[in-house]
């Protein structure tokens, strides 16, 4: 018994010790890795070689060279992330039929010839042979990997089939149009006015557009055109295609390319941008003369002039079809970019921007074969190309990636759908004027429609530079003011516990300062006036209708605006005020130094102002700016300086400000720079000449590395549905047929709850779209397409094709599957 008691006591003591130990062990906070080291590697092949040699863990740049991709795929030591942000097209010069400048004939003046180019070009050849599989065929101004394509995938698919490769059809249409225009085909060559019809083709040489250009030039030569292939770099070509008047005839076709580093959830404006004179105020755009119906549709989509999503769908259906008939641009392919990494590295990559464009990479990057910790070695083609400051510093993707890894915003976009997700926001109520097209997808936003939205008299509408106080709606508009939308933002309760990297707690002054600076810097009476910000400010002022702090702790604010977005989540985030500026994070106490330096004309936030005054462009991390900023830090401490004290003095006392400056001084003495943010890592070391940047885990970060970060973990890999169609190979006309649709992700059934919709299309033996309908859900991973006897009665005998489109809620890339079957009488 005694022994038993002793044993029990021992066990109890051991248990107590282990529990105590567990309690005293603090959960890891901040980044998953201890250290992130950035270096510069310009050559992509070399970077892959270094990854293979375990000298790097990640190369944060998109690779599109098939040979390098092959190496990555073949190496068991490597993995990769995929993104779809850039795309190529043919830009046509529509002036004509002859160029006033040269008198030369321009076949691409005729929309039918441009339209026929869609049949002439084999996009699959471009994607598979030229791009080595690193591409997706593209027919439209909307991106195949973005939400609008997913929404209208069935419409798009039908048009893609209609405009599939058909060289004979292209030749027939072009011959007909050329003949009608007065051109003559002699010995296989087109002549106009006795001269060969010569196409001046500006072919870009920096990437695969060179091969695309050669391929298309050969196709044009095959059908009788004489092609003057002019190989040019971006710079050389820009002097002609975008600088010159297209009437001079310096080009007929240009191999254009565009890039986007974020998922654009509303591409409705793309038709207006790419096909109408409203797109850009440049000579080429001025030459566009779209069909009036297309013009009207494009403008309505650009202005969000619709009330329901059904109406928008109808407009999109028209725009997609009419854009193919216009074809002043012929879209070729969406480039697939590969971000290579070691196989044991996991990171949340963005479908548009890859890893360097991801907002969550800093939260998610980790080694999968070890517990939290370790050093992550990342290389990029360039490091620190320009100065860092939040109001007018660098916006290079390389710098922004590093900054984002050390920062967080109140909401962050999903890397797979572009929808904003809350980070330091509990919820938002969005009130929109009835009739405006705003729709919600996620639960953190509550969307309501109201007949009228009045702006309260106490809301801040303008800024008095001299008094350094906001002007209220009541003062400026005594008769009252209304807005199209109101956003009530409920910030997270832990908001004020968040710390800047120098240990200073976030304050309301940090949150209000961005609004002050928006007004102040655009006002000529301000000491930090900068004419560069005026155009942006004018845009802002047109739609801004007021801001109000409803409650300080927990913080609740109201934002009024006339500018609405398709997604309520985007509108909600537009209403969030936060200390994250266009060029990075900025605390009040760090920005105060810059404000003083610019007011005294020793440094400037923007490059333009620096050039104008002949002063240094402000840099918070290195160079001649640092001693100047340090001088103003000392001055701020001595003067107990609060910027815009008449307003911010309400949120921070002079002593609190001094404490913040002291913390920043200690930070500067320890780290040698003034960059402080709030994210999971902080900037430990900057070596600008050596091109090395070192980040360290921020142990003072408010969230645990694991646990609470689960919400970002789901973004490990995009859940692009794999679709497989099975069913009868032969269907009797007038009979019924069921086709099973297996939808999986990594061989696991795709949850029905995550499928937005699925549709089928049947292309009959004549090549026409005969049937369209929904695929019905059966269970997770399984859908069914049931063709009734009435459906099959519409088909003609011969081979048919069943195409199925599955659109997911969690990723904006739809899954496609198809099956051939024969119909018999």
């Amino acid at each position, binding site marked *: 018994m005694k022994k038993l008691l002793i044993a029990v006591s021992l066990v109890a003591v051991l248990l107590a010790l282990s529990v105590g130990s567990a309690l005293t062990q603090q959960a890891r906070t901040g980044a998953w890795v201890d250290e992130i080291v950035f270096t510069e590697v310009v050559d992509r092949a070399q970077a892959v070689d270094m990854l293979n040699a375990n000298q790097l863990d990640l190369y944060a740049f998109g690779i599109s060279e098939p040979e390098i991709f092959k190496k990555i795929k073949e190496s068991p030591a490597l993995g990769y992330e995929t993104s779809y942000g850039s795309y190529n097209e043919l830009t046509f010069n529509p002036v004509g039929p002859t160029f006033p400048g040269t008198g030369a004939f321009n076949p691409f003046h005729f929309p039918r010839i441009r339209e026929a180019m869609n049949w002439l070009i084999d996009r699959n050849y471009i994607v598979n042979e030229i791009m080595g599989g690193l591409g997706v065929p593209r027919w439209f101004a909307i991106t195949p990997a973005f939400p609008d394509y997913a929404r209208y995938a069935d419409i798009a698919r039908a048009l893609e089939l209609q405009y599939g490769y058909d060289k004979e059809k292209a030749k027939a249409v072009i011959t007909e149009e050329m003949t009608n225009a007065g051109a003559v085909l002699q010995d296989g060559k087109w002549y106009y006015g006795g001269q060969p019809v010569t196409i001046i083709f500006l072919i870009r040489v920096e990437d695969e557009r060179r091969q695309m250009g050669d391929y298309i030039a050969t196709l044009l030569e095959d059908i009788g055109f004489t092609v003057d292939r002019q190989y040019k770099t971006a710079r050389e070509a820009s*002097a002609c295609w975008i600088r010159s008047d297209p009437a001079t005839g310096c080009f007929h076709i240009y191999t254009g390319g565009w890039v986007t580093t974020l998922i654009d959830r*509303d591409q409705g404006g793309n038709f207006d941008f790419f096909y109408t004179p409203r797109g*850009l105020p440049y000579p080429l755009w001025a030459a566009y003369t779209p069909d009036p119906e297309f013009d009207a549709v494009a403008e309505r989509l650009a202005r969000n002039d619709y009330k329901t999503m059904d109406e928008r769908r109808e407009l999109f259906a028209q725009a997609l079809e009419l854009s193919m008939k216009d074809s002043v641009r012929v879209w070729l392919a969406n480039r697939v970019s590969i971000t290579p990494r070691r196989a044991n590295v996991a990171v949340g990559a963005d479908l548009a921007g890859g890893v360097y464009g991801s907002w969550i990479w800093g939260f998610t990057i980790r080694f999968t074969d070890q517990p939290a910790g370790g050093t992550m070695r990342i290389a990029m083609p360039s490091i620190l190309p320009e100065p860092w400051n939040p109001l007018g510093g660098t916006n290079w993707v390389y710098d922004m990636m590093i900054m984002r890894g050390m920062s967080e915003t109140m909401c962050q976009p999903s890397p797979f759908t572009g929808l904003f997700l809350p980070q330091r926001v509990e919820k938002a109520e969005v009130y929109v004027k009835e009739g405006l097209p705003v729709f919600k997808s996620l639960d953190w936003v509550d969307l309501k429609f109201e007949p009228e939205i009045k702006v309260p008299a106490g809301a801040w509408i303008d800024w008095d530079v001299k008094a350094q106080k906001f002007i209220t709606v009541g003062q400026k508009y005594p008769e009252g003011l209304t807005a199209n939308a109101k956003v009530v933002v409920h910030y997270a309760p832990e908001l004020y516990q968040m710390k800047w990297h120098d240990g200073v707690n976030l304050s309301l002054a940090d949150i209000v300062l961005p609004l002050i600076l928006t007004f102040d810097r655009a006002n000529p009476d301000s000491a930090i006036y900068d004419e560069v910000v005026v155009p942006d400010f004018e845009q802002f002022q047109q739609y801004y209708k007021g801001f109000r702090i409803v409650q300080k702790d927990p913080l609740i604010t109201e934002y009024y605006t006339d500018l609405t977005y398709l997604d309520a989540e985007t509108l909600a985030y537009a209403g969030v005020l936060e200390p994250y500026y266009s060029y990075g994070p900025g605390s009040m106490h760090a920005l105060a130094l810059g404000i003083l330096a610019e007011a005294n004309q020793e440094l400037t936030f923007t490059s333009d102002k620096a050039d104008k005054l002949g002063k*240094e462009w402000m840099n918070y991390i290195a160079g001649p700016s640092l001693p100047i900023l340090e001088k103003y830090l000392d001055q701020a401490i001595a003067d107990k300086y609060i910027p815009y004290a008449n307003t911010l003095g309400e949120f921070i006392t002079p002593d609190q400000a001094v404490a913040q400056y002291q913390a920043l001084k200690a930070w500067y003495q320890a780290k040698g720079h003034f960059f402080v943010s709030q994210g999971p890592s902080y900037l430990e070391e900057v070596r600008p000449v050596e091109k*090395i940047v070192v980040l360290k885990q921020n142990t003072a970060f408010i969230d645990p590395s694991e646990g609470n970060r689960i919400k970002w973990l789901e973004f490990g890999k995009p859940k692009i549905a794999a679709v497989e169609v099975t069913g009868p190979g032969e269907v009797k006309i007038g009979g019924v047929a069921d086709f099973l649709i297996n939808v999986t992700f990594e061989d696991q059934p795709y949850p029905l709850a995550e499928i937005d919709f699925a549709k089928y299309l049947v292309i009959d033996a004549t090549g026409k779209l005969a049937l369209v309908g929904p695929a019905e859900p059966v269970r997770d991973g399984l859908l069914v397409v049931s063709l009734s006897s009435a459906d099959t009665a519409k088909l003609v005998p011969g081979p048919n094709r069943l195409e199925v489109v599955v659109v997911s809620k969690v990723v904006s890339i739809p899954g496609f599957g198809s099956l051939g079957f024969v119909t018999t009488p």
Partner: protein
Amino acid sequence: MAESTTALPGKQRLSVAKRSVALETLGRLVKYVSTRGIALFLAAVIGVYLTILIANMGGYVDQIKIGEIREQVGASVLANPALQGRPASEIKKYVEEQVELEIKRLGLDKPFILRSFKYLTAALSLSLGRSEHLTSDSGSRQVRLILLERLPATLLLWGLADLFLFFASVLFALYLSRRYGSFLDRTVIALAPTSAAPPWFYGIILILIFASVLRILPYGGIVDAPPPRTTLGYTLSVFKHLALPVLAVILASIFITIYNWRTFFLIFSSEDYVEMAKAKGLPSGAIERRYILRPTLPTIITSFALMLIAMWMGGIITETIFVWPGLGRLLYEAIGSFDTPVIVASVVLYAYLLAITVLLLDIIYAIIDPRVRVGGEGKLRL
């Protein structure tokens, strides 16, 4: 005393004559230096202005820059969600304002010919001015700082490589010149054509061997990442990163340089006075020093001086493949972005250094070479 009284006027006369000759010589020297100085300065001015014209393609680059600005602003409109849904008139106004601001910032609103003289005066006065696109690594737009930041890395790489190359090749060539026809001599002759390949070619091969396959030396950069904390560690790391680029530079030139010097020394080795020295039984070291090296000194010094200033330009492609943060890579970036002030500054500094070096060499020649005279044929040599 009488002797002294008769001697003094003579000495005075001699002294006066000597002074007069010295003054005359000084006058000739000043005149010569001034004439040469002006001629060299004019050559530098012409060279720099030609650089400005070429770098701007006679003003055509303005069209390219405006095209680029429009393209960038256009792309930014497409990527800016804040502009979505806004009326076309607003977007048009916004774009025009943005384009105009950038055109103004770059001075493209003024004719190129006016700006070309502004570039020229800024360059010649060495004010160097501000870059148009590039910033220094630490973020400054001052061309002076941009160049100064890159200078140490270039001097380190090219200084080390060129100094080694110079002294090693001269000494080895001197050695070979005394062993004409030996196996070593024939080996060097056989290897001389290997210098047809530039340093970057050897760089790629060396990277493949030592970094990619053997993995014992780094691919590029100037120091390990993260950089070692101690000075010694940092220095050792820099030397480790220097190994491949220095080796590439040396490999690309060593054999042809030895061959050239060896041939040069051979010509002097067969002079009569060298044969006489040999006949006298002087040791070979003394012959090399007194009878071969001394008369070839002006050429050696010229070569050395030109090598020193050539370091200033760095090596565009070599520095690029080794990701070496030097002036060569900077010039590559400046040319790529049409950054005229940086291009012109690099060229003007090189032009000045070259002009000064040539002028100094002219003077040094006159001092060390008995055969060089400055004007006044038949009179005193300088």
